[in-house]
């Protein structure tokens, strides 16, 4: 019934290769967050702009990003755009797909954070003679960052885990890609994937813990 013999040695021998893959994973996740945050800020601005076209564009983005599978979003970036003659490498397609997804979720976070800050805060700033921009920059924005910080780090964890979807578009240098190839050569599926899972877990947990430590240092009120 259960006569599988574990061969951990093979998996452990491949550990350096897998750790190299983990670095690629981390790199894609970080880049996708960087792009995601910038896009999300723009989308938040668009949605508050009162301009119907910009608002419509941003809302469509957010709706698609949040209500369709991330896998489809990555597929679209690779195969979908390919149909129109835009050929993105697996790496770029994965990055674009995840960044698109990040931006949608983050834009919603940012909007929620902004709404959580009462108008009276701006009013208090204006009544002291600040311009609207100053009131936003020095009073609203710092409070908004605090509210949005932990949800943003959650998205970072999601981004790390989403990179594993890259195998579906032929990505073979990230942790999931490397593991998949090792598996294909050895059929030691359980060992390789268990080890990969442990590495994903450690990275994700480290991000969460680091974010918490950072938050308690940055936000002391």
């Amino acid at each position, binding site marked *: 019934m259960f006569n599988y013999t574990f061969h951990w040695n093979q998996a452990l021998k491949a550990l350096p290769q897998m750790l190299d893959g983990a670095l690629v994973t981390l790199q894609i996740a970080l880049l996708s967050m960087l792009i995601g945050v910038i896009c999300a800020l723009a989308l938040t601005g668009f949605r508050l702009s009162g301009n119907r076209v910009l608002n419509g564009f941003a809302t469509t983005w957010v709706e698609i990003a949040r209500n369709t599978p991330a896998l489809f979003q990555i597929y679209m970036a690779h195969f979908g755009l390919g149909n129109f003659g835009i050929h993105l490498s697996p790496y770029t397609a994965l990055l674009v797909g995840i960044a698109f997804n990040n931006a949608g979720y983050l834009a919603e976070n940012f909007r929620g954070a902004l709404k959580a800050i009462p108008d*009276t*805060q701006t*009013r*208090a*700033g*204006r*009544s*002291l*003679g*600040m*311009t609207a921009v*100053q009131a936003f920059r*020095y*009073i609203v924005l*710092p*409070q908004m960052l*605090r509210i949005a910080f932990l949800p943003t780090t959650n998205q970072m964890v999601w981004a790390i885990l989403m990179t594993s979807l890259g195998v579906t578009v032929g990505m073979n240098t990230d942790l999931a890609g490397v593991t998949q190839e090792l598996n294909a050569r050895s059929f030691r599926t359980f060992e390789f994937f268990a080890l990969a899972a442990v590495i994903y877990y450690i990275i994700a947990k480290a991000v969460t813990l680091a974010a918490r430590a950072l938050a308690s240092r940055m*936000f*002391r*009120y």
Partner: protein
Amino acid sequence: MIEIENVRKSFGTLEVLKGIDLTVQKGEVVTVIGGSGSGKSTLLTCINGLEPIDSGRIKVDGTEVHAKSTDLNKLRSKVGIVFQQWNAFPHLTVVENVMLAPRKVLGLSKQAAEEIAVKQLTHVGLGEKLGVYPNRMSGGQQQRMAIARALAMSPEYMLFDEVTSALDPQLVGEVLDTLRMLASEGMTMICVTHEMKFAREVSDRVAFFHKGVMAEIAPPEALFGAPKDPELQKFLAATH
């Protein structure tokens, strides 16, 4: 001098100010009393330029508040306002709350702003709370901080909009004491308040607002001692 001439203001179909005339001299303390919705708070936010007016004129030292050419940010550093809700900036310490506007609006150095902030906070009795975050303080302390924050801009006029209304009863006294102190130092003040005893003590004149009209204005002895307006008589009977 603050000159208010025939000011009218509506929110939608509701006219909240129906032609207000009031002149407040330098050094004068005017308190405004009246029921909720009588327009008293709206008038204050109009003087500060936070609310537009529909017609009439408000002038502060000859500058027309609602004229397009007026630099409202400059005007606001001259006319301080403190609200019922003190609106402490939660992400800044007490001293940083007070330093922010002097630094960003007046362009003072950190050191100069801190000096002013410490002085004003000590003045309102918060000299021990400089590095504390607002959420660690009582409502009364936060409200005094808000007063120090407005004073740090060296305003020539101060507007107080029901600054004790949101406070627990036992905290009202400390804030009123701060206002009394300012009045005794010669600050020009317009205070919207529900504290009749306070109004009687500190005011040079008391104005009674009713349904958007300034129904009566007189020195406190006259207004409280021999009210003429029938609505004021009813109001005083109900509040005593």
